[in-house]
């Protein structure tokens, strides 16, 4: 059982950091037993169907507060988040389900606006919303509404993207500035302003991935950066693949408002959530081509190379600081906590 004082679920178990990982490894997987024998630590599961087609399958729940935030809303998030989990295995997303848990008393206008946003988002991402479910809980038992989406997609022949394909020498690319979603949500939830308004980066990444596969069918690793931020994704990938990762901290694009917000609250931009960014591990000889096509897409126009996969220090991510020193990069324990001073 995950060790935590009190022996109960705490908010950090949903933070996407170490506590979340422990919940999966120490509670869910043992409890599921053999039923989870083919589960993989990837954004979506890939299953071979009779006839050779490979199906990608994933699911995600969305509990964001507030429901509408600068640059997006829970409906858009629920569509793009699941589309992105499919895209990270190289799949072309086909269809999504949407299951709602509604709180008694929720304004129908609000629900209508969320649903309309989901419709627009699905059209933009090129997926169908093909099935769904609705449940209602009593007033006071839910935050207005929760959405769960599941999605399926088809992995094109010859595409094999998974963490353990990372090899030393691979180039690490980030598809744009980090931390925008987390700071955008925090700023409205807590009524904080950091100079300029910052918008969530919520976006579907399937088009970007398709463009990358167009020039490099042999793409090694993809991961979308969500809760826990860039640091968590890199740490998970290094651990799963048994490789080291070194990146130049200065090359990681951090918007000024994100930096200001993080500085103000004592948060690390590397730990802050994103909803429209990915990290890719690409063979060194393909990196330039891949980077060029990424930059030609709207979702990847600010893509940059930040570092390399190395055979030193397996499982450990190392940042070279602006001053030329080095440090270990860790994933957060649970939720990020604003500091006292």
């Amino acid at each position: 059982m995950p060790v935590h004082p009190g022996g109960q679920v705490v908010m950090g178990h949903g933070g996407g950091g170490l506590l979340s990982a422990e919940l999966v490894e120490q509670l869910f997987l043992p409890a599921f037993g053999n039923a989870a024998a083919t589960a993989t630590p990837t954004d979506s599961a890939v299953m071979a169907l009779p006839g050779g087609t490979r199906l990608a399958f994933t699911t995600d729940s969305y509990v964001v507060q507030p429901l509408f935030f600068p640059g997006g809303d829970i409906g858009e998030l629920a569509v793009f988040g699941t589309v992105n989990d499919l895209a990270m295995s190289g799949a072309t997303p086909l269809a999504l389900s949407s299951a709602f848990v509604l709180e008694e008393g929720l304004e129908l206008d609000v629900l209508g606006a969320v649903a309309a946003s989901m419709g627009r988002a699905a059209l933009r991402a090129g997926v169908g919303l093909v099935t769904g479910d609705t449940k209602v809980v009593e007033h006071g038992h839910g935050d207005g509404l929760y959405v769960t989406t599941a999605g399926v997609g088809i992995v094109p022949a010859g595409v094999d993207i998974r963490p353990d394909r990372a090899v030393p020498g691979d180039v690490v690319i980030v598809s744009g500035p980090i931390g925008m979603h987390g700071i955008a949500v925090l700023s409205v939830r807590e009524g904080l302003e950091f100079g300029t308004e910052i918008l969530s980066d919520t976006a579907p990444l399937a088009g970007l991935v398709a463009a990358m596969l167009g020039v490099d069918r042999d793409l090694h690793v993809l991961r979308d950066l969500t809760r826990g931020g860039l640091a968590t994704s890199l740490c998970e990938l290094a651990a799963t693949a048994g490789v080291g990762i070194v990146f130049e901290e200065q090359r990681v694009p951090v918007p000024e408002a994100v930096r200001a917000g993080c500085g103000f609250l004592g948060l690390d931009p590397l730990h802050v959530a994103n909803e429209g960014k990915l990290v890719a591990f690409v063979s060194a000889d393909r990196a330039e081509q891949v980077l060029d096509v990424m930059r030609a897409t709207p979702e990847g126009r600010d893509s940059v190379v930040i570092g390399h996969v190395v055979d030193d220090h397996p499982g450990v991510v190392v940042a070279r600081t602006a001053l030329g020193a080095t440090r270990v990069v860790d994933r957060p324990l649970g939720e990020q906590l604003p500091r006292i001073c």
Partner: protein
Amino acid sequence: MKYLDEFQDPALARRLLAEIEAAATRPWALMEVCGGQTHSIIRNGIDQLLPEQVELIHGPGCPVCVTPLDIIERALEIASRPDVVFCSFGDMLRVPGRDRDLFAVKAKGGDVRVVYSPLDAVAVAEAEPDRQVVFFGVGFETTAPANAMAVFQARARGLENFSMLVSHVLVPPAIETIMASPTSRVNGFLAAGHVCSVMGTGQYDPLAERYRVPIVVTGFEPLDVLDGIRRCVLQLEQGRSEVENAYPRAVSAEGNPVARAMLAEVFEVCDRSWRGIGLIPRSGWRLTAEFARFDAERRFDVGDLTVEEPSECRAGEVLQGMLRPDQCEWFGTTCTPRTPMGATMVSSEGACAAYHQYRRVAIPVSVRRG
């Protein structure tokens, strides 16, 4: 936002490092007082770049770290009460007491809320008049003015359902304790810039004089820290022991008079226990008699709750610069941020937690350049 990139410039950093290297002819041990500085030093790797002669000792200026276990237990006790809304800055929530933290209290149904300002807690008290709203008033001189203002406002608005669990500590008595210790190795101090932005620099003159030790008021960005180190080393090499302000963009000699006036009205000096160090006379603040009815310890009658610190923990030696975190036998094995044995492992600004986060693994010197 200004003042971020400007104070992280690598070329300027190299120049400051070269000046430090040129100046240092003998070994010097400097203590950065503030946990924010410790975090910045370890995160940016500043200590790796300094010449061998200049050693940084990580001081006791992390408010989460030095808050005694007694106070943590009182917080947990008060937060567990069904009539209480317990408001706190985020990083106090994960500090473990004997068998639980505030997150666990919250999971059991306690109404624990993270706020970004003590005035938010006053607003909660105003909005929910039938609940007892308690703010966890922790910190050094930096956070004290806002906490004083919260109590002042609560009285002005007649909010008798607001109270504060006060655990305020002061920097100068801690510096004095360290210097008076016969085992102290500290040759110079980097004083905490934000503390001085409130209190000014005058309090440090008697300390610099009495102990013949340079005290350089220092900021938090990499260049701030390097400039503080440079000035401190120069003073030591030239045989000077002065209070010097290396953070003039935030600190003036007299500090913030408005904030100091508010502090003088609401708080009075008292003895305080420091986790990892012990009792330091006249090293903290409590509410004055006039505001004592806003003291949560009185309101909830938890003042006699005491807890023993685990005796194996060596945080006291770390806080006084006698032991580097990674030299401790418990570091990274028995004692981790998940299972902290004491003060310096509980907050991200604690020296042990900073080492655990950024230095847990020995990093090879030759890394592939990106």
